[in-house]
């Protein structure tokens, strides 16, 4: 009697450990850019609900940290909002890891103003002057005679990063700019202030604000993908060497227009297809 119960207990425990092992068998670690994080999060959730025995652990920390983790082997996938630097490639190759880039989405940032604003177009250099605090009245850029209220994003957001790269060209947004904590907050602030200008990810655009063309090109999925719209950038996932097994499956899932790319759009970014 005692013996049988012992056997049963052992069997149950063995089965339990086996299950646990199974669950941990497919383990994907993703680290890196906080810009790519919302995409990775949505896609990872969808992927895990389809493949219950694959565990994905996800963390932010910035593009640089993600690539650093890829170089020292502590992550399977590094999310990055920029292309890998030459120095980083050299370091990775020294450690025997060949970083492979996958562009998974595009980030497109559009300047927005209040719907009553009659300004029709802004060039990148005008945008820069506005954000440096040099242009103080809408009249100077062909708009109504009103003060310009500059709305920017918190300096650690990915959206700000694009703006800083593509518009500000290493110069600072002036200190008098209002900083909002999210795309939604910028839309809210611009829609309730007829003097305001802000910038948001294309996915957050709605009728309460007016998107301005930049260099006479309207920001859209089409102009982003054909490269004519100036304020956009691709977002990457890097793997060490050509991906295999679960990581390959996951990357395929991300790139699939029916699956991963659907979530890219949901997260407010421009899908590849």
């Amino acid at each position, binding site marked *: 009697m005692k013996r049988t119960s012992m056997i049963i207990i052992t069997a149950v425990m063995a089965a339990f450990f086996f299950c646990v092992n199974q669950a941990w068998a497919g383990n994907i670690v993703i680290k890196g850019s906080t810009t790519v994080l919302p995409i990775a999060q949505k896609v990872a959730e969808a992927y895990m609900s389809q493949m219950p025995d694959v565990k994905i652990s996800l963390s932010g*920390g910035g593009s*640089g*940290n993600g690539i650093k983790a890829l170089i020292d082997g502590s992550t399977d996938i590094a999310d990055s909002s920029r292309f890998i630097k030459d120095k980083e490639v050299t370091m990775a190759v020294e450690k025997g890891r060949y970083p492979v880039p996958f562009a998974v989405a595009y980030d497109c940032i559009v300047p927005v103003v209040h719907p009553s604003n009659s300004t029709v177009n802004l060039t990148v250099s005008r945008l820069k002057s506005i954000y440096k605090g040099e242009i103080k009245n809408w009249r100077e850029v062909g708009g109504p005679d*009103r003060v310009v209220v500059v709305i920017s994003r*918190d*300096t*650690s957001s990915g959206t700000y990063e694009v703006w800083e790269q593509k518009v500000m060209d290493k110069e600072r947004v002036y200190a008098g700019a209002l900083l909002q*904590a999210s795309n939604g907050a910028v839309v*809210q*602030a611009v829609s309730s202030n007829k003097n305001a200008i802000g910038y948001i990810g294309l996915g957050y655009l709605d009728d309460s604000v007016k998107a301005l063309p930049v260099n006479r090109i309207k920001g859209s999925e089409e102009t982003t993908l054909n490269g004519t719209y100036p304020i956009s950038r691709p977002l990457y996932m890097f793997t060490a060497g050509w991906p295999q097994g679960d990581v390959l499956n996951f990357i395929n899932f991300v790139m699939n227009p029916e699956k991963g790319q659907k979530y890219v759009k949901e997260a407010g970014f421009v899908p590849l297809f």
Partner: protein
Amino acid sequence: MFNTATYKDIFRKGKSRRSREQIIRFLFFAIALASIITLALIVVFLFMEGLPIFSKVSVKAFLFGHYWYPTDDPPEFGIFALIIASIAVTGVSSIMSIPLGVLTALFLAETASARLREIVKPIVELIASLPSVVIGFFGMVVVAPFLQEVFDIPVGLNLFNASLMLAFMSIPTICSISEDAIFSVPVELKEASLALGATHWETIWRVVIPASISGISTGVILGMSRAIGETMVVLMVAGGAAMVPSSIFDPVRPMPASIAAEMAEAPFRGDHYYALFATGIVLFFFTLIFNMVADYISNRYRQVGAATL
């Protein structure tokens, strides 16, 4: 026989009661200790995560630097504008909340009828329980456009709007603590004053307020420390521009707003992260000072019985 048994019983009961007493005492001590240790650990953590920034920036440059560009290359960590913003927001909100809070308390305790008091006091206390995000949203969606229209200013998300919302939040605190203090002024004092021929107003001004000043001050300071530490409201309605304001309609960026907005995206244990924790230390000192002042006042002017006056 019978008697000895009873004595033994009583003796045993006494013993078990004593040990039970001890266990309970120990339990309470342990609980008190646990919460104090937790608090102490949080403070230690705050300092551990904040102090490393001072190996990169001097304390003076950090506190008095005018530029807050934490993600630039090279970064600049100067929180002077943030400190000024916090002080300005708290100051302007106190100008509004102290008179309103204290006068409401006086009205409720002294002039209002018992029935009115019973209706109004719970309502005031209910305002205190409004979630700050709701107040922030109200400020953003309703008050900001309203201010823009009425004062014809370029932007409604500014120091004044934030102060208004903070005042709204600290009035209940000030009012309810002051009201308790005023209400508990011994009735003999008032009776004596009235009996000597003083009017109701003279009694309030010369007797009731001096007698309850410690409670009122405690309420005021707790209300102010609520305002300086409040995060959500200032994050939503203060505008967020990291510059020293030149008018009350300028957008500002108080310390809690800066910490809340940037912490999520600051690289873990990077300079920016340390700088945000160091900002937290500064904020901690502000609220600590407020609480110490409140404590001092409530001890210094503590009313001992009816005889102190």
